[in-house]
């Protein structure tokens, strides 16, 4: 297979749109083509986005069947020479320390995942914000851990924040949300858990959202520095 041919087949290959015979020939070509590998990576990532956009929650029974089958499935050993790559991926941190940290947070994460109280149905208010025609979103990544998404619908004067993996707060405390504008911060709701969603109403002229740790019943003005602040999309 010569180079121009190969170039033309990269996209169909990334989309699994080659016939069996062409796929095999092309894979053979790939083992010798340095420039292909670089371009293919981006094409595979793009194709994967098409897959992510098609995500559907699988039937609950699938999980048990998969877990059951992996218990009976022997794993392939790593190919020789993989170790250096691994270290590359975890720069500057000893593997042991990383393992301990991960084990600790995995455990915490687990409690969250197995929590039977987690929301199972979408609150109509949340759905309204998500499907508003002017809904804009921002990724939330507090330096202190966890991640989430803030979706703002100015037409509804509302927003929804969803967070997961937040550090646990001391007992008797909660995360309090604040709408920040040129005036004093306005309380915008409490999150009592390390994960969950909160509808924020009456955004009005707020430009930022801030989050502090406060007493569980909430306070009328923040008493501690923010865990994070976030600019609201206009």
């Amino acid at each position, binding site marked *: 297979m010569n180079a121009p041919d190969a170039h033309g087949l990269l*996209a*169909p290959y990334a*989309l*699994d*749109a*080659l*016939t069996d015979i062409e796929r095999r020939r092309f894979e053979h070509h790939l083992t010798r083509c340095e420039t292909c590998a*670089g371009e293919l990576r981006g*094409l*595979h*990532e*793009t*194709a*994967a*986005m*098409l*897959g*992510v956009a*098609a*995500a*559907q*929650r*699988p*039937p609950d029974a*699938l999980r048990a*069947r*998969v877990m059951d*089958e*992996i218990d009976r*499935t022997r*794993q*392939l050993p790593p190919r020789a020479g993989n170790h250096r*790559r691994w270290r590359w*991926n975890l720069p500057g941190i000893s593997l042991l320390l990383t393992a301990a*940290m*991960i084990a600790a*947070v*995995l455990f915490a*994460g687990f409690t969250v*995942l197995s929590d039977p109280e987690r*929301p199972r149905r*979408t609150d109509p208010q949340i759905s309204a914000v998500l499907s508003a025609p002017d809904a804009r*979103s921002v*990724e939330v*990544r*507090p330096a*202190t*851990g*966890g*991640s*989430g998404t803030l979706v703002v619908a100015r037409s509804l004067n509302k927003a929804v924040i969803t967070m997961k993996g937040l550090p646990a707060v001391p007992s008797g405390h909660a995360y309090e949300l604040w709408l920040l504008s040129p005036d004093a*911060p306005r309380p915008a709701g409490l999150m009592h858990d390390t994960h969950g*969603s909160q509808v924020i109403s009456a955004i009005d002229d707020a430009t930022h959202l*801030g989050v*502090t740790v406060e007493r569980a019943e909430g306070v009328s003005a*923040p008493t501690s*520095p*923010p*865990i*994070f602040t976030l600019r609201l999309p206009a």
Partner: protein
Amino acid sequence: MSEPFAEGARFTSGPTAEDLPEDLSTLVQYVACGDRRAFELVYEQVSGPVYGTILRVVRDPAQAEEVAQETLVQVWREASRFDPLRGSPMAWVLTLAHRRAVDRVRSAQAGAEREQRAYHLEREHDHVVEEVETRLDRERVRRCLGGLTELQRRSLTLAYYSGYTYPQVAGLLDVPLGTIKTRMRDALIRMRDCLGVDR
């Protein structure tokens, strides 16, 4: 603005130590060492995209579930073969899933016309966080697909979502083979740039 917000806002966009356990790439490396709990967390993150991708291609929910199970067990079995330098773990997993899905439909139908019936989007057990993330990804992809020409868009979606080979796509759209290859390539590259995918 009152004192607490005057300074010390620590919002960042960079990863931190606490993000590690949510980082799919790290989790997959723990799975490679036989960590069953890490696998459960991987399952949480990838099972929706895996099942959804396969369902789009094979259409039949019972078959989609079978193929999803095979794919997820393959992720467990071959976790040691995942190489973070060659791409993201989600792309690795979805490449396995999509490949299995098209293999299933092509072997099952062996050239026969595939049923093109629609399926219902049953989302009985929605999780809000998942829904928000999926919705946003879906929205971005939809917007970017909207920026393609009709021929680019159809050649991309017939290949990826319907699982057709490029000669089949060429036949369906009645355009020469060479044109289809070019359109697929243009479409993927435009999508890549529109979605801001890392190269």
